[in-house]
């Protein structure tokens, strides 16, 4: 039988296991992307990471055009590609921050939409190659039982940002 004095130990154990679980997710995401055997496998890795570690089966990769004025749909999973073929930077203010290399996340319980689309967008993640964004990963609707992007999801998105470049090779020349 547990007593009141057990509570701090239980809480500490829960936190410890939770931290380990989060570290395991970040590690698995990094390993999966770094060990991708080719471009197709790297795209599959993005799908796996989004579905299994973050909690969305609606994901797209947009390549940035040379003028950095438009993003063209390069690959997608779980969305209607005809609805999202191109994103115009001048019409999407949140994309400017992403093109500077910083991810943008939808806040929990926020009705805010990150893009001018009917579909909910939860994260815009720049894919960096040589330190510069060459593509953007868009995470759309999360699983219904998932309330929003968590701190560990942000860490996983950072891994996607830094390690998913191979999925969009060859990046356009700068």
């Amino acid at each position, binding site marked *: 039988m547990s007593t009141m004095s057990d509570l701090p130990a239980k809480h500490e154990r*829960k936190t410890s*296991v*939770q931290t*380990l*679980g*989060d570290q*395991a*997710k970040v*590690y*698995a*995401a990094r*390993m*999966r992307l770094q060990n991708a055997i080719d471009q197709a496998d790297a795209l599959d*890795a993005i799908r*796996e*990471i989004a*579905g*299994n*570690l*973050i*909690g969305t*089966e609606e994901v797209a990769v947009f390549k940035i055009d040379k003028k950095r004025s438009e993003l063209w749909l390069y690959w997608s999973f779980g969305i209607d590609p005809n609805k999202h073929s191109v994103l115009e930077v001048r019409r999407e203010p949140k994309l400017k921050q992403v093109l500077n290399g910083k991810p943008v996340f939808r806040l929990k319980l926020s009705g805010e939409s990150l893009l001018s689309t009917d579909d909910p967008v939860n994260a815009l993640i720049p894919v960096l190659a040589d330190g510069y964004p060459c593509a953007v990963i868009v995470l759309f609707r999360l*699983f*219904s*039982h*998932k309330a929003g992007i968590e701190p560990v999801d942000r860490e996983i998105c950072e891994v996607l940002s830094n390690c998913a470049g191979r999925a969009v090779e060859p990046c356009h020349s700068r």
Partner: protein
Amino acid sequence: MAKKVLLVDDSTTTLMMEEMILKQRTNYECVTAKDGLDAISRAVVEAPDLVLMDVVMPRMNGFEACKRMRTESSLSKTPIILVTTRGEEEYVEAGFQSGCNDYITKPINGFELVTLLQSYLGE
């Protein structure tokens, strides 16, 4: 003797994460399979103490694999936990009808995973 857990998922990312959590936080031995068919043959050979299995997989999904495992005398009482992307009632009901003991939703929460497995296998 260490309890043995069969982890079944077509995603190497998920298998890596699950193994890492269980190896660090429990004494369980982990063996893996990459789809439902593979899981059945591995389970017959390995005789795991528990099966943690994804639902959506190529060749044979988790529901079907669960049903088939229940027809194997050596696996008829082995706890099977399904990993689902959806927590809706009818989806969960389909899991229980296939013979699973429990389910856990993706993305997997490390604490929930360890706690759930320990409830079947002990610490």
